[in-house]
């Protein structure tokens, strides 16, 4: 089984793809059947992925020498692209995680989407998404990865815009696609550079060649540029500043989508890509620094926005952006292990919280403002308590999952600073402060939503088992999922690392510091939003720091800026181009046509319509020609001179 799984890992993405085809062409009219097909395929895929993971994690050889098999996709002289499978601990972990979360979320969706007229379509999209994402994870080639990366983006577009009757959903879908497209443009350029310079896009091949870049005749500067170009892709996909704007809007999609795509899987594709190409970034310290800074900045930036948002899914979205920044930071300071670890734990607790939020929305009939909720934990105990577990995990309270991964990131950042990197301590400070803010805004949300006074106008009820079951599973994972990466027995770091495995001594001081931050954040939230039943203090603070509050509430007006740019710059220049086209280019053409017409109009007066005049002119011309031919030129006249028999 395990050997079969290892050699047939391509079946993992193929099964959901098949499910997609089956649903689209066969079972669309029967929603229940479609859902069953989709879940069955996904679950088989999960089983297979587990076997793959088992196979990989029992064979340490895969750490250094990944299992790769591929076949030629297309090619020509000087440019061949293979597609294939590359299995190492990192991809096996992702494979396992993605297929599991996807399975859980599909189960959840049977409850959440119950009765939706587009039920089958929804499951077909989910299947297609899972197929693309799993394919991305096992890609052995950057172009293959890019292709699936784009397909993932397409699914995201379709799923965000799933409620097609909502204009906001439509706009959000467009925004998501176009914003990530900008990132893809940079990435595409980077890939082109890599292809042209190194002659391959195979990850293994590149990993071999990039360290010897000087032999390929390029400077460190160019390599830095390439690395940054490649990184623009993840900036778009993983919602890093300044291309983060689409992610919060993406919450227009159904909640399972938000959980699956915009928390657990797709958005981490960027992180995963950076992890996959870390051989490139580790060569160029400049690019790595850029990543670290963008990561850290995104983390704090999104956190400051999240503290004032009112919609439950939006808060979670900004928290996602912030956590993704965290992962990037870890990768930027050179620790694949820490970044992937946070990706792993984050997938569980964030999926959990999104699904919990979905459960809440389901119960409250899509009322999303946290200020209008309260006391829900009494009516929805499973949702509430699992949500609390998620909150503890993300805030970084031991022994929940988030603590270990966050601690790991703080450790590596501190080490990075200690190695004498300029501004390394700034990174550490940003990371720590973000941790504090994270705990604060998460618990602000939890207190407002689940605790405090019940609102009489709400009639919440607990969700069905199909929805709570995934919550319970995810809660369990969020609680214990981090234990494989404790500093005392770092199984995680042993398997998933780049370069030399990380053997950090447990840093108790830092651990304490991190817990203190989390507790402080929670405490602050407790003081402001639980103890203070009228929330007077919170309101007062908002009053006093009105400009800051507004800045945060309006997300630093970045959306407005982009909108202004699109409207006033892009559209306006498009209008200018169009004006130029119909008034200049076209008028040149029409002018030529007009000139022709005018000359025709002038010449037409020669056409008197009197046939005898024509004949007169004809014979005059004949006479002239005859005279010229016969008497003008001696040679011609000679030839005209006689009739020869």
């Amino acid at each position, binding site marked *: 089984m395990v050997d079969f799984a290892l050699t047939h890992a391509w079946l993992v993405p193929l099964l959901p793809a098949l499910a997609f085809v089956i649903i689209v062409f066969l079972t669309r009219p029967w929603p229940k059947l479609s859902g069953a097909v989709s879940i069955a395929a996904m679950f088989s895929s999960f089983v297979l992925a587990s076997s793959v993971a088992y196979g990989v994690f029992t064979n340490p050889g895969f750490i250094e020498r990944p299992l790769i098999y591929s076949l030629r996709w297309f090619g020509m002289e000087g440019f061949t692209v293979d597609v294939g499978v590359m299995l190492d601990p990192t991809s096996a972990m992702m494979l396992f995680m993605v297929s599991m979360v996807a399975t859980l979320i599909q189960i959840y969706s049977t409850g959440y989407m119950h009765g939706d007229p587009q039920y089958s379509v929804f499951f077909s999209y989910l299947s297609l998404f899972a197929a693309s994402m799993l394919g991305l994870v096992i890609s052995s080639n950057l172009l293959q990865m890019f292709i699936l990366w784009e397909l993932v983006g397409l699914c995201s577009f379709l799923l965000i815009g799933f409620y097609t009757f909502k204009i906001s959903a439509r706009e959000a879908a467009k925004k998501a696609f176009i914003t990530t497209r900008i990132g893809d443009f940079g990435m595409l350029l980077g890939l082109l550079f890599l292809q042209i310079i190194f002659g391959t896009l195979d990850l293994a091949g590149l990993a071999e060649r990039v360290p010897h870049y000087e032999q390929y005749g390029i400077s460190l500067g160019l390599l830095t540029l390439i690395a940054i170009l490649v990184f623009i892709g993840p900036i778009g996909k993983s919602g890093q500043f300044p291309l983060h704007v689409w992610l919060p809007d993406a919450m227009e999609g159904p909640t399972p989508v938000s959980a699956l795509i915009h928390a657990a899987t797709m958005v981490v594709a960027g992180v995963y890509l950076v992890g996959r190409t870390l051989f490139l970034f580790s060569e160029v310290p400049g690019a790595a620094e850029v990543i670290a800074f963008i990561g850290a900045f995104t983390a704090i930036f999104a956190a400051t926005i999240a503290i004032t948002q009112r919609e439950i899914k939006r808060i979670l979205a900004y928290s996602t952006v912030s956590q993704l920044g965290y992962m990037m930071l870890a990768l930027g300071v050179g620790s694949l292990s820490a970044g992937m670890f946070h990706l792993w734990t984050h997938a569980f607790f964030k999926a959990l919280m999104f699904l919990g939020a979905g459960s809440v929305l389901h119960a409250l009939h899509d009322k999303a403002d946290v200020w209008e909720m309260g006391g829900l934990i009494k009516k929805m105990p499973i949702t509430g308590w699992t949500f609390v577990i998620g909150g503890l995990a993300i805030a970084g309270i031991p022994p929940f999952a988030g603590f270990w991964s966050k601690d790991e990131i703080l450790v590596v950042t501190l080490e990075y600073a200690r190695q004498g990197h300029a501004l390394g301590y700034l990174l550490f400070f940003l990371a720590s402060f973000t941790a504090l803010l994270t705990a604060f805004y998460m618990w602000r949300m939890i207190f407002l939503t689940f605790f405090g006074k019940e609102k009489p106008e709400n009639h919440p009820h607990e969700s069905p088992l199909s929805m709570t079951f995934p919550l319970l599973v995810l809660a369990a994972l969020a609680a214990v999922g981090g234990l494989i990466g404790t500093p005392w027995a770092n199984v995680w770091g042993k398997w998933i690392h780049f370069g030399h495995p990380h053997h950090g001594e447990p840093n108790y001081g830092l651990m304490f510091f991190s817990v203190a931050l989390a507790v402080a954040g929670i405490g602050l939230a407790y003081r402001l939003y639980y103890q203070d039943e009228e929330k007077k203090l919170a309101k007062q603070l908002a009053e006093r720091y009105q400009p800051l509050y507004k800045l945060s509430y309006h997300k630093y007006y970045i959306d407005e800026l982009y909108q202004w740019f699109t409207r006033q710059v892009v559209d306006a220049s498009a209008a200018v181009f169009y004006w130029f086209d119909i008034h200049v280019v076209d008028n040149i053409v029409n002018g030529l046509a007009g000139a022709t017409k005018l000359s025709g109009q002038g010449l037409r007066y020669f056409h008197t319509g009197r046939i*005898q*005049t024509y004949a*007169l002119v004809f*014979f*005059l011309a*004949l*006479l002239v020609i*005859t*005279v010229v031919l*016969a008497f003008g030129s001696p040679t011609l006249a000679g030839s*005209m*001179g*006689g*009739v*020869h*028999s």
Partner: protein
Amino acid sequence: MDNVYSLLAFVLLAGMILGSALLVVTLRNLVHSVLWLIVMFIGVAGTFLLLNADFVAAVQVLVYAGAVCIMLVFGVMLVQRPNMEHSNPINWRFKLAAPLVGGLFIVIGLLTAKSQLVVSGQEVPAQTVQALAPILLNDFVIPFEVAAILLTVALTGALLLVKEVKANGNGS
């Protein structure tokens, strides 16, 4: 002395042809023009006889002097108003046309004078019809048939044209 007679005949025929042709194109009365046209055609037929082309001469008399002229007279009568006196006016172009045709005549004449024609010296057989028939019905059978079709088509076309207009005339 054959030569002298034939020369004399040529001069007389040429005078008859050119004179009547000039009258055709200058007379004001169209009916008179047509009558002089018959004279001209007969003159031409005489010329053909002079040229040992008896069959062509016969055809000339039959077709031109006979059929065509009759048709023309009918045509004139069908379209012309009762007043025949000025039925054939001259337009402004004659001032240009006269020098033009004069020039054309001179040029052709000059070219003819310059040409060195190689006269074969052989005589044309006296009986041309026997010689013509096999050529016309063997070598030229396809053009011959095409000409026949052309005539039929022309006849039908003419009928159609005239008939159609009549129908329209009734209708309007």
